[in-house]
């Protein structure tokens, strides 16, 4: 005899359970957690470098940075004096809640105002994994093409902020900025959209203000 057993369970149930626990820990500690996601080379690490060096004195930040191989990004980011840990996934194309949980070991969340998570460079899988963050932030560089929000709608749909990066290159690349924004809006009408350049510092003030708005007690302005 054949029968169908109804389950109605989330496929990523275990990750979501752990992410909910992390979110509760972050909230209790008052730690803002943001999860930066993009394809490789969009400028996540460079944005973090500029952000860390711009943080006002007294802001307590830390970074978890994910890569399939190497600790190159952690080495770059550690120069700014904040705690940084590399999560080397060894082939896995995304971070999950368990990896975050493991790599928080020994860190006092009460002593952190903000935790930056730099995900593995990938626009697909990281969108499926809740890490307990307050916000996913997707970066799209102007060298990638304005159709990316339509091709990879999941991550644009789930992000609270869409950062269009490397906008200093706009005069040199066939990138339609307005069309990119319209494409992003068609997937996610609620997300904020900012253009930034870490070469010219264009948009960095707005980026810091966006972060600062989520840290009410702290005024973040680029130095």
């Amino acid at each position, binding site marked *: 005899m054949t029968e169908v057993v109804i389950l109605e369970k989330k496929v990523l149930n275990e990750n979501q359970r752990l992410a909910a626990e992390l979110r509760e820990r972050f909230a209790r500690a008052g730690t803002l957690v943001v999860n930066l996601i993009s394809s490789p080379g969009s400028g996540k690490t460079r944005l973090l470098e500029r952000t860390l060096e711009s943080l006002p004195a007294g802001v307590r930040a830390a970074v978890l940075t994910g890569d399939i191989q190497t600790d190159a990004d952690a080495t770059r980011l550690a120069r700014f004096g904040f705690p940084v840990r590399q999560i080397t996934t060894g082939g896995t194309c995304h971070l999950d809640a368990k990896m975050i949980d493991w790599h928080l070991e020994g860190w006092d969340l009460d002593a952190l105002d903000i935790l930056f998570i730099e995900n593995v460079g990938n626009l697909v899988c990281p969108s499926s994994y809740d890490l307990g963050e307050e916000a996913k932030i997707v970066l799209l560089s102007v060298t990638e093409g304005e159709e990316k929000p339509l091709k990879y709608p*999941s991550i644009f749909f789930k992000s609270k902020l869409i950062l269009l990066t490397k906008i200093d290159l706009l005069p040199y690349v066939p990138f339609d900025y307005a069309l990119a924004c319209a494409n992003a809006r068609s997937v996610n009408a609620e997300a904020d959209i900012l253009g930034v350049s870490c070469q010219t510092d264009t948009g960095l003030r707005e980026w810091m203000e966006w972060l600062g708005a989520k840290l009410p007690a702290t005024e973040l302005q680029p130095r």
Partner: protein
Amino acid sequence: MIDAVRAQVAKNPGKRATAVGVRIGALAGVDGESLQFGFDAIVRDSDVEPLRLVIEHAEADELDLAWIEVEDL
């Protein structure tokens, strides 16, 4: 998913799973063909073979293990 199937079978002695239904939304970030490929690779020569994957399309970012079909051994 396979672990969920095994758990379900363990709860139903004398039965085996024949199919598993998954609902995937267009915004779930999961490619059905890739999932099918990985599923077939894992099932082949395993304790749950033969097991069919049935992908149902769903709304937004839904990604649910919907049902498991079991039959008497």
